[in-house]
């Protein structure tokens, strides 16, 4: 029974990893194939979040019978060596979480900057469709040449 539990957990974990691959593929498709800049931006944020999710998942560890997994937060404020040993045994990996915090902040900075640029582009060209923007630019260059 216990082995079955662990096999089930491994299967669910694999399913999560593969669904994240699908998410990456769909968001990459959005970034490359969609002509609308806002849709590109939304796809990019989905891509960022998926990668972050994947990083956190890497820090997770296998649940085993008798092991109570917990976040890397020590709840006992005057810990004995035994409490600490138990804490180290039960906690998930804190490093990916710390990296993801950094990634979220940088991702937010990029999103903020891109949003501002999209706002500017929409005011300049009255559209956020890259194909239309390209076309209007070509018309302008043609007029210049004539």
């Amino acid at each position, binding site marked *: 029974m216990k082995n079955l539990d662990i096999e089930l*957990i491994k299967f669910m974990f694999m399913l999560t990893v593969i669904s994240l691959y699908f998410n990456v593929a769909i968001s990459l*498709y959005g970034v490359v194939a969609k002509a609308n800049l806002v849709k590109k931006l939304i796809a990019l944020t989905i891509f960022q979040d998926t990668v972050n999710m994947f990083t956190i998942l890497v820090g997770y560890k296998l649940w085993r019978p008798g092991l109570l997994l917990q976040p890397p937060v020590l709840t006992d404020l005057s810990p004995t060596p035994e409490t600490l040993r138990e804490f180290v045994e039960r906690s998930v990996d804190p490093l990916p979480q710390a990296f993801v915090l950094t990634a979220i902040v940088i991702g937010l900075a990029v999103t903020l900057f891109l949003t*501002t640029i999209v706002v500017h582009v929409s005011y300049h060209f009255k559209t956020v469709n890259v194909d239309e923007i390209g076309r209007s630019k070509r018309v302008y260059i043609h007029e210049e040449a004539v």
Partner: protein
Amino acid sequence: MLRDLIFVSLLVVIILALTYLTYSGGLGDLPPQDIRFIAKNYLNLTYNQEISWLWAASPEAVTAIVWDYRGLDTLFETVVFYGAILAALTLFRSISKVPELVSSAGLSLVVKRITAIVTLAILTVAASTALHGHLTPGGGFQGGAIASVAPLLLLVVFGKQFFIDRKITYNKLLSIRNISLALLGFTSVALLVLGFLIGVESYIFQNQAKTISTLSYPTHLLDVPLGGSLFFFNLFEFLAVAGGFTLVFTILLSKDETLRRELEGEELGY
């Protein structure tokens, strides 16, 4: 159409290849039986008073890693974030000089009263997330991000006149952000400065005393763990993020004509 088809099939092939790699153990044992050796070290040292020359004085391991063990990295990451905010603000810089961006008187009285109560709750949760960042999951950035929802709500529900009546101006928000950033920088070098003044060896980003340096930030305040410098970092980051986000929201929620005026002056627009 054909291009789309090729692209989709390429993605499907990539997914299948990655899935095969993962399934056949390309990423190692998933999920791993145990955490990595380095993670064990961090977990063991973060709040281990018996090895006090290596501890970060914070029961929350993620905050300890973010602001102490790799604090310089986080400081520069903060700089990148404010660079982006600054860039966004610079693109619309003259809006700050438009004294009046208002026309809306806000939504109905019912919405306003409910929002007032919710805003208080949001600010309380934000402050708790930021100030307990070294004790529970959370931290300055998360707290700041939560707090910035409150002014966004107020802007939408009460209208911008509400901010102007209470003299919450662009310059004041900018000052909050800048002062918090300066204090953030100061916290990272405070012990270094103190060390210079009293002639003791110390480091940038020093939190607790090391074997060759005896200076420390306080670990406890009235019997509650303070997390050394982590509490101050969280507090200043909270203020700076909340101030910076509010600034950006104020700008991006300006009237269309005000924003468009920024772009006038160029004949063709690009």
